[in-house]
């Protein structure tokens, strides 16, 4: 048994050889724990596989070209013709808008924290606030946004959805940019100061270039979070079967499309919910791969 396990791939994959000395009493607990660790590792890695497997298995049969090229037609929610183009485009609009606003706000914050503020009480307070913002459940943002909308007399719209999503994405993006900025060698900044650049010039001409790969990763991370979040846009963006033509119209989104189709009693529509979930997962996968690829490409220009 021992020989078999050690010869085969097991030892190679897990870097784990069952050795004779494991059977001495003082090493038994080590062996048991190691087996438990490997088991947990397999459970954790397996659960992702299981999720992808389930979503693909259920979603693939109902996925067709009409799903992604058509908007819902009459009786769509009773199982008739149509697709969820409105939700796909709506989600892209929402996430793009939210990401842009979050980006415009987060770059100055990250630059200020890194270049201007140094390590002070103020910068710690801001980082803590960002962490708190990160922790606030998206449903609370949604309820907060809806309260503000009522107070202003606004109706559910693309604009409101974008604003709430930007609240959600801001801490994710800022912290991600902040993390990469910390990795910049101090000498690089000092060299820039030494040749007479002021802080703003250093920020825009040295630091930003240096963090470009990390910046792209941060943008795509926030974008992915924005596309996937349902609770915050539930009240603020509304839901519609049309593709919006102005930012004051309500807009559909993919997570809500999944949710609403799943809560109908018709199996055909529920199958479409599985297909919509698959589309959403594919978009997230693409974003994840894209961010790896782009940051790999851009990191060639980074001075280590």
């Amino acid at each position, binding site marked *: 048994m021992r020989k078999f396990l050690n010869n085969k791939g097991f030892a190679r994959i897990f870097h784990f050889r069952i050795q004779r000395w494991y059977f001495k009493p003082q090493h038994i*607990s080590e062996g048991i724990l*190691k087996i438990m660790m490997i088991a947990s590792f397999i459970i954790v890695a397996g659960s992702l596989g299981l999720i992808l497997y*389930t979503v693909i298995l259920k979603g693939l049969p109902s996925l067709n070209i009409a799903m992604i090229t058509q908007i819902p037609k009459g009786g769509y929610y009773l199982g008739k013709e149509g697709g969820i183009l409105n939700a796909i485009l709506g989600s892209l609009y929402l996430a793009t808008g939210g990401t842009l606003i979050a980006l415009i706000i987060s770059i100055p914050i990250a630059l200020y924290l890194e270049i201007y503020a140094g390590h002070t009480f103020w910068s710690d307070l801001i980082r803590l606030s960002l962490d708190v913002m990160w*922790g606030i459940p998206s449903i609370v943002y949604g309820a907060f946004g809806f309260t503000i909308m009522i107070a202003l007399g606004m109706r559910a719209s693309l604009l409101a959805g974008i604003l709430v999503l930007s609240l959600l994405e801001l801490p994710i993006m800022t912290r991600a940019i902040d993390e990469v900025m910390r990795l910049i060698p101090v000498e690089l900044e000092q060299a820039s100061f030494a040749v007479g650049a002021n802080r703003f010039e250093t920020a825009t001409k040295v630091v930003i270039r240096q963090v470009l790969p990390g910046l792209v990763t941060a943008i795509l991370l926030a974008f992915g979070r924005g596309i996937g979040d349902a609770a915050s846009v539930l009240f603020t963006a509304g839901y519609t079967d049309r593709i919006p033509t102005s930012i004051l119209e309500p807009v559909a989104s993919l997570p809500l499309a999944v949710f609403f189709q799943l809560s109908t009693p018709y199996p055909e529509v529920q199958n479409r919910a599985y297909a919509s979930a698959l589309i959403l997962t594919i978009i997230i996968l693409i974003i994840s791969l894209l961010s790896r690829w782009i940051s790999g490409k851009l990191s060639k220009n980074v001075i280590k």
Partner: protein
Amino acid sequence: MPVNPQKNSPRSKSDKLVRWSFLATTTLPFLIVVVVIIVLIIKTLPILQYQSIWQLLTGRSWHPTKGEFGFYPFITGTFWVTFVAMILAVPPCLLTAIYLVEYAHASTRAFMKPLLDLLSGIPSVVYGVWGMIAIVPWVQKVIAPFFNKWLGFIPFFAVNNPTGFSILSGSIVLAVMVVPLIIAVSYEVMHAVPDGLREASMAIGATKWQTIRKCVIPKALPGIIAATVLGFSRAFGETMAVLMVVGNVPKVPGSIFDPAYPLTALIANNYGEMLSIPLYDAALLGAALVLLLIVLVFNVLSALVLIHIVGRPAR
């Protein structure tokens, strides 16, 4: 005083201008947190004038049309789901993190990193779909009968609910959702333990596991607790995935196979259509406030601990 010859040059002026505009932007996150809290408090006030905080938090009946607002079933529902999720998630997460830090090949680590990133990027609604397709039937057909047969006499495991939409289903889904976060943070914390400690322990003849148990874990313990708290607060505020699998029955649960109705699901299901009933929106925003304050406390505590250990709040 040294005189700066460039003090009034255009470049220096623009630097100053940028500095102030950046500073103004930097106050935003702090302001947003404060504004959210204040708005929620103001909006909750009407219901606090109608009944006391104590009545609101411990009231057991929820009939908005009759003017009865009790959060007790929802708060207990939230805590049950979250606690069971943490019990399921924490041990495998810690073992995996220890494995990754202490034993695993560099190639295993390189494989695990993108996997965890991906797992944390999957939208909660997809987790919810997965829960409805895979976990709910599994709990209904496999887990519940098994527990009913062998452990049904313990009230905690009693099966009174024939559907699989239960606390356990919600907890399993939540547990999988918080796994990437807990592993990432506890990995970071254990990675920060200096190698010298490990070497010293090994040098006096301790085995690898003894080193981990006696040196690495005690040193990393506050960080591990912070990771757990962070996962807890993430699970606490999760809405969509839980909403889809937990059953949504406003009753105080007594067993992990009972349905529950978490605070987040309460807001998501009812908000938007509550305007016609008096005090309903105040009650729901009160629920949001309770959620926010609990998460806030947990987050601040774990962030403070992590700043102390890793030098920055880890994510």
